[in-house]
């Protein structure tokens, strides 16, 4: 045990002196989190809350339906809308220059065309910046136009079926005023996802954990190349302690770097990940999974340089597939494969924890990481050691 402690202490000292650990484990991920937060910040808020918007309207229609479209926008429960009326020819320019969400031109014969079943075209102009608000506004306009058309169709069908024009018009009015026959009972899913800022912090932490842990275990190959491995084995130290010390160092570096990164994210970006106990368990499990992966790497390669390259490839592939930069949408077999990714499980676990989940709720992600760690450790026992074969 004393030998193990001494080896771990010595290795930790060496790794901390090595600037690569500091650069890969802390500086690069923090810099990336900052840049990605700034860059993605322009894409909108984390939440779906809709902001108040202005619609630029140019109305040529002299009938009531043009105004009905604008009325329905203003009274939409989905978002707060104010309408600014301008000349129809100025709608596009005003929408772009004023930063409005939507421009709308209601043509001269809109009411007449709708009521008589002739072609009617409503022109919408998107604002200069794509936004959820604009999409919602477009949906509302389409919805209103469809409702007006449906009422007109009902009247027309009534006349075709032999009803008097007055009775048919009454039917149209009652159709327009009636409560919808089909309704949605809406609810929001208990989320296992992190908001954008938090997912960037968690993703970068998971990605660079794989790099940081690698520095500890790849030290084994450096020892072999420098001849210190043989010298340690020549003294009365159990052989397993040498490998174990590298694993412990990798694990400790991973846990320390991840803790600092998540804490930095909480301090600098105001994100939260929930219970420290659950987060701690997730960090330790992810570090264990990452450490076990390096056992396979060190047996597959012949030199420390090769190990670093292999480690980088694995880290980038697992990181991107796990959603370190952006979430991947997938279904079927691919989704199942992606779920076995420890980086993805780590991010998912933090999402559950951030949503108030306890240890029982994160057993799924924890299980993925534990199984991954056990499988890699077991597999590494059966892989021939190529560095020893030199």
């Amino acid at each position, binding site marked *: 045990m004393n030998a193990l402690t001494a080896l771990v202490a010595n290795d930790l000292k060496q790794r901390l002196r090595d600037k690569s650990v500091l650069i890969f484990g802390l500086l690069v991920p923090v810099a990336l989190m900052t*840049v990605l937060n700034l860059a993605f910040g322009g894409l909108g808020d984390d939440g779906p809350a809709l902001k108040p918007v202005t619609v630029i309207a140019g109305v040529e229609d002299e009938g009531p339906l043009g105004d009905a479209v604008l009325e329905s926008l203003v009274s939409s429960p989905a978002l707060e809308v104010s309408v600014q009326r301008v000349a129809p020819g100025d709608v596009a320019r005003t929408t772009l220059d004023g930063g409005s969400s939507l421009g709308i031109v209601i043509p001269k014969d809109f009411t007449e065309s709708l009521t008589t079943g002739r072609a009617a075209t409503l022109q919408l*102009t998107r604002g200069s910046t794509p936004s959820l608000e604009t999409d919602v506004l477009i949906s509302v306009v389409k919805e209103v136009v469809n409702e007006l058309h449906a009422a007109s169709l009902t009247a027309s069908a009534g006349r075709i079926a032999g009803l008097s024009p007055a009775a048919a018009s009454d039917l149209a009015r009652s159709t327009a005023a009636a409560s*919808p026959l089909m309704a949605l009972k809406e609810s929001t899913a208990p*989320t296992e996802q992190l908001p954008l800022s938090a997912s960037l912090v968690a993703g970068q932490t998971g990605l660079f954990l794989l790099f940081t842990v690698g520095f500890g275990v790849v030290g084994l190959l450096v020892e072999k190349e420098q001849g210190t491995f043989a010298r340690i084995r020549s003294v009365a130290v159990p052989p397993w302690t040498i490998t174990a010390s590298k694993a412990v160092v990798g694990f400790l570096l991973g846990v320390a770097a991840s803790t600092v990164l998540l804490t930095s994210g909480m301090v600098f970006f105001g994100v939260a990940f929930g219970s420290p106990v659950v987060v701690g368990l997730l960090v330790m499990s992810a570090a264990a999974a990452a450490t076990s992966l390096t056992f396979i790497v060190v047996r597959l390669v012949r030199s420390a340089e090769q190990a670093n390259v292999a480690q980088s490839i694995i880290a980038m592939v697992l990181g991107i597939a796990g959603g370190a930069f952006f979430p991947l949408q997938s279904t079927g077999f691919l989704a199942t494969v992606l779920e076995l990714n420890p980086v993805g499980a780590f991010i998912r676990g933090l999402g559950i924890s951030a949503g108030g989940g306890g240890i029982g709720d994160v057993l799924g992600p924890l299980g993925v990481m534990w199984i991954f760690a056990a499988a890699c450790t077991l597999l590494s026992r059966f892989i021939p050691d190529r560095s020893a074969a030199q």
Partner: protein
Amino acid sequence: MNPVLAIAGVELRRFFRDRSNIFFVFIFPLMLILLLGIQFGVGSAGPIVAVAGGEGTPLARDLTDRLKAEGLTVRPDAASAVRRDVSRGSTDVGLFISEQAGKAYDDAGPVELEVLAAPDASGQTALQALRATVRDLGRTQLQLRALMDGGVTEDAARSALARAKTSAVEPTVQVMESGGVSSEFRGLGRFDLGAAQQLLLFVFLSSLTGAAALIQARRYGVISRALAAPVTAARTMTGLALGRFAIAGVQGVYILLGTALLFGVDWGNLWLAMLVVGVFSLVAAAAAMVVGSMLDHDGAATGVGIGLGLVVAGLGGCMVPPEFFSEPMAAVSRFTPHRWAYDAIAEVQRHEAALQDILPHLGVLAAMAAGLLVLGTWLLRRSLARAL
């Protein structure tokens, strides 16, 4: 042999001898471009709606048909799987069709459907589309009911509605882009934007990680021995930079041609795109020389190379298009070579720009390359006085 070319040749041979470079330089960029195109590219699959229950019913069939017509991806699944996928974000909206809802729909009665939406923006967009589709279906039911309440038989009502539909012209809502950000990406193919961004990101990143090679050359005394010969520091630096430039240029041209052939990326005038990549590669090579001369540890240089490569790429618009940047962020991005190269490629790719249109961009890139090369030469000379 010219010493500059000899040094550049050695750099090239050393690079291609290491087979692991092949992954990051040639395979990984194309994999990422493919992935980004599939996930986020123009024409990628729309929001995903998972439907649980109602198998084979007219309600499920009508809903599925209309949702697909709206561009949404619809797939059936078990209720528990739908709930899990929505909460994990792999599905945007879950729709649950009960047996009663199916029967009520058949009888033109009131139908209630349970829906579970992801809380993010994508989930809300999908929910909005689902609301509109359901209302649309409900309207048809409502029309039937109104006619039947007015004394028309069900068959006559259906027939009258069908006739009314054929005789009337459906109103259209025409959505136009007003210019600005929305119109910037009009006409781009699924992989076009991602290919331009990843091209710049990887050319710069690969070059910067090559800074470690310069440190090794210093450590093994190669540089000192080269300078012992009648070769100046400037020529040595030029030779080393030329080697990195050749690697960056080969990678850039490979990505340009590879994405055009494999993914049908339209680069506009390919020769102009190659010219932009060529000048950008010069900046990348010179930046690698600066990093390689400033640091003394090759491991640290690799870390700084990857970190700097990713951070500068992010600032320069290679992760999120700079068109979406806030004003201050856009101003900062002008200090990166990526932004100038991105803008030049965008001009060529989207606006059929000619050489004179992108000359300002090329000028800025060339000035950056020259500045970094001078800085690198000075730093290299200083670095030789330090012990490694």
